[in-house]
Every structure is written in C-alpha cells, then in structure tokens.
C-alpha cells in the first residue's frame, strides 16, 4: 500500500484473522500500524493486493455494501474522533442511530455501557469537557455498543491509568469470549503480556506474526534454542 505517489508503507503482507481471535498489533511509530488498521476498517483501499472480509473480496464490494460491512467493525481511534457537538450519550449511541434503531430501544443499553466504563454520571455532557482518558472510554463504548464482529482499537489504553487500562482490556477479553474478533494496536508491551494472544509485529512495512505465549512455551519444550531466540525478539521494546 502507498499514499499517492509516495513510497510503499506496507508490502508483502499476508495474514488471516480467524473469527473470534484476539490479536495484538505492535511496531514502532511509522511502521504502518495505522495504515494497516485503515485497510482493515475500510477507510483506505490497497494500492495492490486483495483483502477479504467475511468471505467477500473488498474489491467486489459496492458502495452500498460498504456501510453495512463497516457496521460489523467497531473502531477505537487513537485520537478518539468524537463529535464534540453531541453529548457523551449520543456519541456512544451513534452507530445504533445510524443503523436505524429507535432511541427508546437502545437508551438503556447505552446507559448501562456508559455506567460500566465509569461515565454513567457524564452521559449528558459534551466530550470536550472530559479528560483524555474519559474521552477514550467514550470512544471505546461507541466502538463496542453495536456488538461488532471485529473490534479494532488503536492505542486504546494510551490515555487511561493502569487500573482503567486493565479494566478496558478485560472488556475486550469479554467481548472476545462472546465471539468478537479483536485487534489491538499498542506500544504497551505490558498490555501485550497480560493476554496469551498472538502478536502481529510491523517493521518497515513488513509483518511478522508471533504465536501466543502458551504456544511458544509448548514449542520451547520441544525445541528450546529456537523458542529462546523468538522470545528474545519479543521482549525487544518498541518505540
């Protein structure tokens, strides 16, 4: 993938996201994490290559089909992208409203979700009055409220304290147990270590996929030298 006539930001990528899987995406700044996420949540088209969603080739999707596909994907942006003229409640309810659901049908669900992320008392304020961490929680609530089949989160714990970070990770894990495919892009290796999940590591536009810790340990027991080398690579801190 490249932007305009610029250099390739991503190349030779080939991976599969199994339904119901949990993946971390790591890599230094500029490695192409955001570009890869943009490809996954249909905000950009690959300059070459093929992306398939739920068995459908993205290139074959019509303009009318794309919004329906996007509704199956929840996204948490690093910069939140909240609508500052709407209340916290209406920001979170946005995907449901766009999907055509009636306010009285989703009001309780949205209120419950906001209470769960600790914003039950701030439903009717506008995001601009919230702290960065609170805005991040609103963005997460908006991404998960429609119970998407895929949840993509770009640095979802970057602006929250460790305790809230743990809580949000538990939320993602719960959603994953319910069948949602999760991709979390993060610099935070402590977050990565909390879950036994595969790690997609981007470097210079190339992707390297590391197996979950449990799988690596199983391999270590079988071939100790190779596993040690991989673990050492895993422990190398990202930027």
């Amino acid at each position, binding site marked *: 993938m490249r932007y305009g006539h610029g250099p390739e930001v991503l190349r030779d990528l080939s991976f599969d996201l199994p339904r119901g899987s949990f993946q971390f995406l790591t890599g230094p700044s500029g490695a192409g994490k955001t570009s890869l996420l943009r490809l996954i*949540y249909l*905000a950009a088209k690959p300059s070459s290559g093929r992306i398939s969603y739920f068995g459908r080739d993205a290139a074959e999707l019509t*303009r*009318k089909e*794309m*919004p*329906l596909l*996007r*509704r199956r994907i929840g*996204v948490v942006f690093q910069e939140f*992208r*909240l*609508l*500052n*003229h*709407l*209340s916290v*409640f*209406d920001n979170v309810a*946005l*995907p449901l*409203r*766009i*999907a055509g659901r009636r*306010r009285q049908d989703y*009001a*309780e669900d*949205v*209120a*419950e979700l*906001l*209470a*769960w992320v600790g914003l*039950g*008392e701030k*439903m*009717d304020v506008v995001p601009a009055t919230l702290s960065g961490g609170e805005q991040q929680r609103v963005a997460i609530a*908006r991404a998960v409220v*429609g119970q998407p089949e895929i949840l993509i989160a770009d640095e979802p714990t970057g602006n929250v304290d460790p305790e809230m970070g743990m809580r949000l990770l538990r939320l993602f894990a719960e959603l994953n147990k319910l069948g949602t495919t999760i991709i979390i892009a993060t610099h935070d290796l402590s977050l990565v270590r909390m879950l036994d999940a595969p790690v997609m590591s981007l470097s210079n536009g190339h992707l390297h996929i590391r197996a979950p810790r449990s799988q690596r340990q199983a391999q270590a027991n079988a071939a100790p030298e190779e596993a040690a080398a991989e673990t050492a690579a895993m422990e190398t801190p990202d930027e």
Partner: protein
Amino acid sequence: MSNRVPPPPAGGAGALLPPDSGRDRPLFVVAAILVFLACIAALGARGAWLQAQNWTSDLESSITIQIRPVELRDAQLDAEEAARIALTVPGILSATAHDRAHAEALLAPWLGSGNLPDDLPLPLMVEVQLDPQLPPPGDALQAALDAAGLSASVDDNSRWAGAVRRAARTAQTLGLAMMFLLAGAAAAVVAFAARASLAARINVIDALHICGAEDRFVAGLFERRFFMLGLKAGIAGAACAGLVAVLASLGQGPADMAFFLPHWAMDPFELALLLLAPVLAGATAAISARLAVASDLRGRW
C-alpha cells in the same frame, strides 16, 4: 447503573451535523436576495402581462370609423350617418360620432390649440364599442359604410393589439427567464456552499462513515440543513418582494400601472407565488445540496 438517559438532541437527525455557528449566514443573505430578485422578476412579468391584457382588451373592445373629408359633403353629417349605420350591424353596442372640436383636440398635442384654419378639412372620428361576446364586425361595418356611399374607413386596432400582445409575451418570457436564471444561480451557490460545508465538517463525516453511515444518510443530513436554510431565506426574500410590490403598486390603478414593475393586486397568483417561493427555494437548496454532497462523497471514499 444510572438510568438518567438524556433527552434526544434538538434538531432531530440534522443535529448530527454541528450547528452552523454563523458560517451559513452569508449564504442565507445571498439566497434571500436571489429569492427576492426571482419574486420581483415573476411579479414584474405578471404585471407586464396584466398591463398588456388591459391594453389589448381596450383595443379589441372598440373600433374607430374615420370619416374622410370630401368636397361638397358635410363631414359631420357623414359621421352621424356612419354612427347610425354602425348601430345596425350585429356585434356593435354603441357608436358615437365626434365633431371637429374633438378632432382638433386630438391634434392639439402636435399642432397646438387654435392654430388650425377653420377651412382646413379634418377627418372626423366615430367611436364604436363592440360586444365582446360576438365576432369582430369590422368587415361587415366597412361593407355597410361603402354601400351607403360614405368615404369612411374602419380601423379595428388589430395591428396595435398584436404588437401589444407580442410585447407582453416578450416581457413574460424575459421575466420567466430571469426567474429561472436566478433559481439556477441559487442552486449553484447552494451547491458550492454545501461542498464547503462538507469540507469544513469532514471529521464529522469521517466519524459517521466509520460508524456505518451510508452516503445517502450523510447527504440527507445536508439536505435537511440546506432545506431549512433555503426555506428561511425564501421566506425573507419573498416577504421583501411582496413589500416592494405593494409599495410599487400604491397609488397605481390597474390602468396606469407601469409596464414591468412588480404588481400587487392580492390575487391568487401573487399570493401563491409568494407562498410557493420559500418552498421552492428550500427544495432547490435541498436538492442542490444533496446532489453536491453525494457527488463529493463518491469522490472521497
């Protein structure tokens, strides 16, 4: 868990777009001026058409018999004879023979009063009022006058009525052309403004798209926003046009109404025009905004 769900935002679905915060105000003014000019053009065309109707009606409801002076004959007696003959022809309601003083009065604007020698022969006029329910009797009247041996000619004003009708049609066409041109200008201005509005709110549009909004959903938001703007601008423009038309018509009767000035007679056409103008302005703005935004979105994603 708190059950204190906030009330829905005012403005319905349109509230998903941020408030205009004054950005749309210049557009409101431009749209109001365009609607004002379009209404003035339409009312002017209507005024021209009504005036032409009055004139052609006057011309077609009467004809004139001209009695040419003939040596050794009394023109006044011939004029009275022509009036009597005219009354026998079907389709004529009245006939009035005018005397030499009337003919001199007609010439006074060009020749002045009292400058004509008494022995200068002048044609006399017989004014004939026609029954509008019957066909014009010009040819039958001419034949009757010829049969009576009078040196008279009938002028049925058709030449003038045709010219007036052509002038009215031209005025109407011009008025309607101006109205359509102004509507086109309004549509173009709104399309431009809608694209600018979309560009200014691209972050919001981006968020809506990522949440699964269809192009038509986003275009619908702009459509509603610009419909309301066009409607309000239309109300302002039409109200001003109505006021100007009333002021222009004050002191003018239908007969002395100036050609192509906006006319106000409180008739259904004028009321309908001023009531419809805001709705049409709103619809034009809405359609224009929807098409512009939909086209822009197709180019972006």
